[in-house]
Every structure is written in structure tokens, then in C-alpha cells.
């Protein structure tokens, strides 16, 4: 298998891993973020530690594949196993550097919706599709020093304004988080199936930072529901290295999350 032979999910995992810095305390979700955390640990961030909202703190990969964060192997050899409130307290007191969240709908200021999708855009009173809800996502988006969104990139998901803010990004732009009382944080990146996005430090609007290999800027714009801002010099997202792929596949040997074998 050559290094160009990777799936979009594997590329996203590699990109997400690069968002983790050495020694950081990371609020880890399942699926791609967990793989990204493990990849970062095995490469450039060996001292990063991972928190799970069920009450687990780990610094080693589980010895077997996990479907949920509460599976047995995630508990054995954990650094800490505690109440959810103590994990959330770390988040609230500012001890968590980075969290990952995924969602169904995002808008130009990085607000995320995983709760209600309106049948008529912007009007929940006329019927909706119900999604599972926040879980801990709103808490991560509210309280981590920064967070990263991981999304499938489709025009129906990239909307000017989400129907419901489950997990706050930058609200309606500059100064909003401070105004509503959030103590810190905000999204630092959005990693999608098409590219990597960052936020303008002034307007706090999302912009395209790099396209994934083989994806054109126009293709990204087509799948985005507002006039997308684009960095002056858009780069190409570095693909996963052969070593990255070897590691990712060791953590997800069946391709449950990264090769559509779910």
C-alpha cells in the first residue's frame, strides 16, 4: 500500500493529529478524534493526555479496539477513573487545552448544531429532524482553551446560520463569546472531508486554509452555503505519511471508522 492510498477519513485523522501539541491535555471523543489523539501520542506529542467525559483519563492507547469510551480496554491502565463532574471541572477551570467535536451542521462562525435540523431552514417551528443532542460537546465548545470541529463537507451541512446552536463557536462574530460570558476558547480549526479551515482573528469568520489533495477551491466553495472566504495562499493539506497510516490502521484494524467498514 503506497502513501497516496488512503481514505478521506485517514487524511482527516492525520490533520487532526497535527492540531495536538506536545504535552497538551486533550478532551478526546471517540471515532476520528480518538485516532488522531493516538496518532499524535505516537508521533510528535508523546506526553499528551486524553480525557473522556465518562470519567477516564489516559496516556496510553487501549490494548484493544474501542467502540465506546466506556469499553473495558479503555479503563484498564487508565491514569484516573472518576465522576463526570470532576472531568468537567477540569474543563471549567481551564485545565483542558483542546477538545474535538463533530457535528451535523456548522455555520460561518463555527457554531455547531447536533440537535435539531429545521425542515424549513432557520425555522424549527415548521418541523425538524431530531439529532441525538449535545452530550459533552457544548461543554467542550464552551470551556476548552480551543476546540476543533470535524465534519463531513456538504452544502446542506455548511449553512450561513445553524438552526440551533448546540455547541457555541464565535456566535455572530467578533466579541460574541466574551459578550455572552464564555470564559475562553472557541474553534481553532475545522477539518472536513474537503479541506482544513481556520478563523479570521478579527472577524472570527471561517476561512479556507488548505484543500485536501485533489480537491479544488471551487469544489469547496460549491459545497459551502455562503460566500466562503479563502486564505491568500491556500496550501494543500499534507497527506498522512506511511508511518501515519501504519499507526492509524493499527488503532482501527477493521477500518470501522476510517475505511467505511462500520
Amino acid at each position, binding site marked *: 500500500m503506497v502513501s497516496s492510498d488512503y481514505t478521506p477519513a485517514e487524511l482527516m485523522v492525520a490533520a487532526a493529529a497535527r492540531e495536538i501539541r506536545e504535552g497538551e491535555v486533550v478532551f478526546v471523543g471517540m471515532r476520528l478524534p480518538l485516532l488522531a489523539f493516538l496518532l499524535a501520542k505516537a508521533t510528535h506529542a508523546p506526553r499528551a493526555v486524553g480525557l473522556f467525559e465518562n470519567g477516564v483519563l489516559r496516556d496510553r492507547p487501549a490494548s484493544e479496539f474501542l467502540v465506546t469510551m466506556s469499553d473495558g480496554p479503555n479503563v484498564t491502565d487508565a491514569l484516573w477513573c472518576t465522576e463526570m463532574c470532576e472531568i468537567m471541572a477540569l474543563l471549567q477551570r481551564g485545565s483542558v487545552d483542546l477538545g474535538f467535536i463533530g457535528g451535523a451542521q456548522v455555520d460561518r462562525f463555527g457554531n455547531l448544531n447536533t440537535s435539531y435540523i429545521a425542515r424549513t431552514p432557520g425555522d424549527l417551528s415548521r418541523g*425538524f429532524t431530531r439529532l441525538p443532542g449535545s452530550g459533552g460537546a457544548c461543554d467542550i465548545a464552551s470551556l476548552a482553551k480551543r476546540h476543533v470541529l470535524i465534519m463531513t463537507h456538504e452544502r446542506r451541512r455548511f449553512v450561513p446560520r445553524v438552526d440551533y446552536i*448546540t455547541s*457555541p463557536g464565535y456566535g455572530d462574530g467578533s466579541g460574541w463569546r466574551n459578550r455572552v460570558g464564555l470564559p475562553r476558547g472557541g474553534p481553532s480549526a475545522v477539518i472536513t472531508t474537503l479541506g482544513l479551515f481556520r478563523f479570521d482573528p478579527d472577524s472570527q469568520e471561517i476561512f479556507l486554509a488548505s484543500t485536501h489533495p485533489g480537491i479544488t477551491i471551487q469544489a469547496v466553495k460549491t459545497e459551502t452555503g455562503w460566500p466562503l472566504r479563502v486564505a491568500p495562499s491556500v496550501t494543500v493539506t499534507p497527506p498522512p505519511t506511511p508511518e501515519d497510516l501504519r499507526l492509524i490502521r493499527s488503532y482501527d484494524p477493521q477500518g470501522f471508522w476510517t475505511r467505511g467498514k462500520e
Partner: protein
Amino acid sequence: MRSEGDPQPRLTESERGTPWAGARKGILSMVKILTLAEAIGRFVPDGASVVMGTALECLVPFAAGHEIIRKGKRDLTLIGPISDILFDQLIGAGCVRKVIAAWVGNVAHGSGYNFRRALEEGSPHPLEVEDHSNFSIALALEAAAFGVPYLPTKTLLGSDIMTRNPAFKVEPCPFTGELLVLVPALEPDVALLQVQRADPEGGSHLWGPTGVTGAAARAAKHVVLLAEEIVAPDVIRSDPNRTLVPPFRVDAVVHCPRGGHPSPVQGCYNRDHAAYTEYHQRSATREAFLDWLKEWVLEVGDHSGYLARLGEARLAELSVKTSRLAAPVDYGF
């Protein structure tokens, strides 16, 4: 004495099969052992608010939930953080009037189809929902456990979870002026909690991730423990730092081995991933769900029927394969 339930000492049917003989010998001052049917019958009346699924994806009290369905309980309010498929089953079975939760679905597969049908189409009947985040539901239970009307937090600010839930208030901090969300206390009528081991007097040990189990146990008016194993009180007393909740706060102890299936219970059995996948497929339509419900809840009659339907081979396959004992701890003096 506290008013919230004070069952008289009694020995019941379920208490014979337990591995600890002392419970039969009448040497205990306060035996709280009930059968699953007795415990659900007594502590989950129609209209009750029930907290369950408190440890997130593990230790989910499915056996208790299925008994609620079989007993035809109605108008329940379900409280819990994420409830991996159990809430969806109770909603589909028509037991639920309201859900207070942060997430309702199938953790491995996404949507909870009964939850969606209830909210999107009012099927089998309309459902009220009060949306929380995991942290805010934990704080609501902690507030009740602590006996205060609310706890302050900085999560939820700016979210629609907050703006659309009139239960929350936003107030400036009297010390710092910063905005705080005040999460009101939520005191469930009953907590149904799966644990690894309990004694007949209500002592218990739980290990692995606990989620909001401690908060729920301390918050609820009544506490029912569903134990993989019934042990002598001295086993629990040998490690009092691990005790989940004071025994005097426990109303009933049910011997309920494999009561968490298909969820995992650390040191006892692993997650039955296939059961979640099967449920995902067989709950996609109302008809398929009713068929699933009949096969796995109604027809089996009780929890032992459920285990019989699973079969010994499948149960054996799910059993823990490795032993990882905690390092010894000495309470000597």
C-alpha cells in the same frame, strides 16, 4: 428516620440464589433484597422520574428498563446523560412522557429512531424533551445531592440549550460580575443503578468510569441497586473508600447478574456490540421495533428468560477474558 422509603427487613425469592449465605441466615439488621419485579413495582410508579444510564455507555441497567416495559409503566420522566439506546427503547415502548438528557441515541451508530419518531411525528405519542449538556445534567443532579436549589456554571452560555430551556437562569456573579448559568436542582424520584457488587444492607462497590452515578445516587429520593453479585457486608466494608453511596440511602438491592447487557461491566463482561447493531437495524421502522421489542423484552418474560434467549455461548463469549486485579490496599491499623 428519613421519610423516603424504609423497607422492612424481609427475605424474598431472589435472595435464595445469591452466593452469600448470610443473607438467608437472618443475621443482618436490615435486609433490602427484592426481586427485580418487586423493586420496579414498588419504586417506579407511573409518572415517576427515573435516572438511569448514569455511567454513560457502561453499567446501563437494561434489565431494569425492560422490566419497566413489561410492567407497562406510563408517563415516566427519564433523566440521564446519554442513555445509549435504553431511553430509545422505553420511548418506543410508550412508557415515557418526558426526557431530560444531554444525548439520546445509539452511541456506536447514531440516531435513536424511536426518539426521533416521538419528537418528529409524535409516534407512539408525543414526547417532551428538556435538552441539557452532559455537564449541566451532572450539575442538576449534584445540586440535588448537595441540597442546594442550583449550582452555577460557565458552560451553556450562548448556546440554544440554554436559551430554549426556561429551567436555566443567567445571572451576573455577585462577586465578579461575570455571567453564570444557574442550573436548577433535579431530584429524581428513583435512581436505578447497575453495580458490580452489593450487600443485602445496601453497601455497594462500583468501579470503572462512574459518569454521574455518584451524583444520581446521592440526589434521588429512592435508590435501587442492581448488582452483578450479592456479597457479604464485610466485603464492602473492607474497602469503604470504594462504597458508592451510604447504605442508609439505598432502598432496595436486586441480584441482577448480566443486568447491564448489552452494555459492558468492568471485570464482569464486555460490550455486546452486535446487539447495538441489531437494535439499530431493527428500530429503523416502528414495525421492526415492535418486532424487536416482542422478541427481546415481552416474550422473554423476565430477565432470566432474556439471558436464556441470549444463550450460554454468547454470554460466555462476552465474559471477561483477562484478570487485572487492583494493587492491594491495607486498611489495617
